[in-house]
């Protein structure tokens, strides 16, 4: 429920604070942003086997597009009745965000759009123990930790809004597709840092960010002219 309320609070903040009527041009800042994910550390409080620390730096190219570089570190441990698994490593993602809100309404403060990323994960993974039962009894073994490089792409819809001067909050959903796991087809990684479940080619995720905005340039943006309703051309019959 906390997650759900977090999403809708963000949506409400944006929905209620978009400027609806303005006639003159407004000053819009282009920003360099530094965002820190708080979802990973918050999750760590409930699941101390998994820690994800990540953040990003972005720079607005104009009032619709931003270039972004994300980086992080992730530790993952998992065990169940028939195996245990460990992975840890670093990841980077680079890409671009597209703001779908009109520049005048966004005013440099609001974002609702989607991003495209290419990610690389450099990680170690291994199975300290596993067992398998069949007709002949129980087979056991272990797979020592080894180094892998994974490549993936992702689409991440999300929103962001200013809450104080130069401070924003925002979240995005990550819809990731594995391009190359680097592990071979038999012992895929249960978890790839920065990607998620490496046993599947698709992995969703979410981040919630606190963002520091540093303005580096200003633009003046005018509202887009409203389209006039088309005049009726049909003539009445006499």
């Amino acid at each position, binding site marked *: 429920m906390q997650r759900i309320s977090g999403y809708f609070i963000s949506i409400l903040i944006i929905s209620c604070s978009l400027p609806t009527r303005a006639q003159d041009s407004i000053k819009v800042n282009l920003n360099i942003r530094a965002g820190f994910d708080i979802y990973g550390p918050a999750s760590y409080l409930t699941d101390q086997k998994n820690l994800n620390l990540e953040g990003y730096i972005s720079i607005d190219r104009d009032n619709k597009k931003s270039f972004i570089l994300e980086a992080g570190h992730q530790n993952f441990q998992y065990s169940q009745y028939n195996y245990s698994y460990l992975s840890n490593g670093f990841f980077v993602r680079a890409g671009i965000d597209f703001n779908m809100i009109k520049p005048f309404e966004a005013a440099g403060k609001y974002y609702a759009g989607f991003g495209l990323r290419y990610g690389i994960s450099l990680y170690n993974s291994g199975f300290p123990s596993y067992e398998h039962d069949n*007709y002949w009894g129980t087979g056991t073994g272990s797979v020592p930790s080894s180094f892998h490089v994974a490549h993936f792409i992702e689409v991440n*819809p999300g929103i962001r809004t200013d809450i104080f001067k130069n401070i924003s909050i925002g979240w995005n959903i990550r819809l990731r597709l594995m391009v190359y796991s680097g592990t071979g087809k038999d012992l895929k990684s249960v978890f790839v840092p920065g990607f998620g479940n490496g046993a599947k080619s698709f992995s969703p995720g979410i981040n919630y960010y606190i963002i520091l905005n540093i303005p580096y340039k200003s633009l003046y943006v005018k509202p887009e002219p409203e389209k006039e309703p088309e005049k009726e051309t049909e003539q009445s019959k006499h």
Partner: protein
Amino acid sequence: MKIKVPKLYRPVILLIIIKIIASCAPDTCIQETTSFLNAGFYKTGTNTPLPPDSVTVFGIGNETNILYGKALNPTSVSLPLNASSTTCGFVMKINNMTDTLRFIYTSYPHLISKECGITFFFSLDSVMVSGNVIDTVAVINKNVAIFNAENIRIFY
């Protein structure tokens, strides 16, 4: 107060709902987790399937655990290989005539999924048969996995 959600956000909200539903799904293993060597029965000299009247199968050294007990008219049998060894054998009674089959193979671990964990796959090297009722054995697919592919053909 009625809150109107802009059209722009609707796909995002839909994705959130999908994500929440997906994350609430329990982690359960619903796949087959044991690899079987699948053996089909054929008439000698042809590629015509010939189900025996009855088949009994058990592992050599594991006689108390019967895999097939006088199974009637099976078109094939599924044999589990021993992952702790590079060879294992089975006693096979086809129409009350006894034969033994011995398989030599290499095994390797395979991750099925996060939920199911690891199983063993096998690469079949060779098959030996005592030759009482079974005429020949042909290896069709040497990769023994959790898929239902036919691996050998037993001609009798």
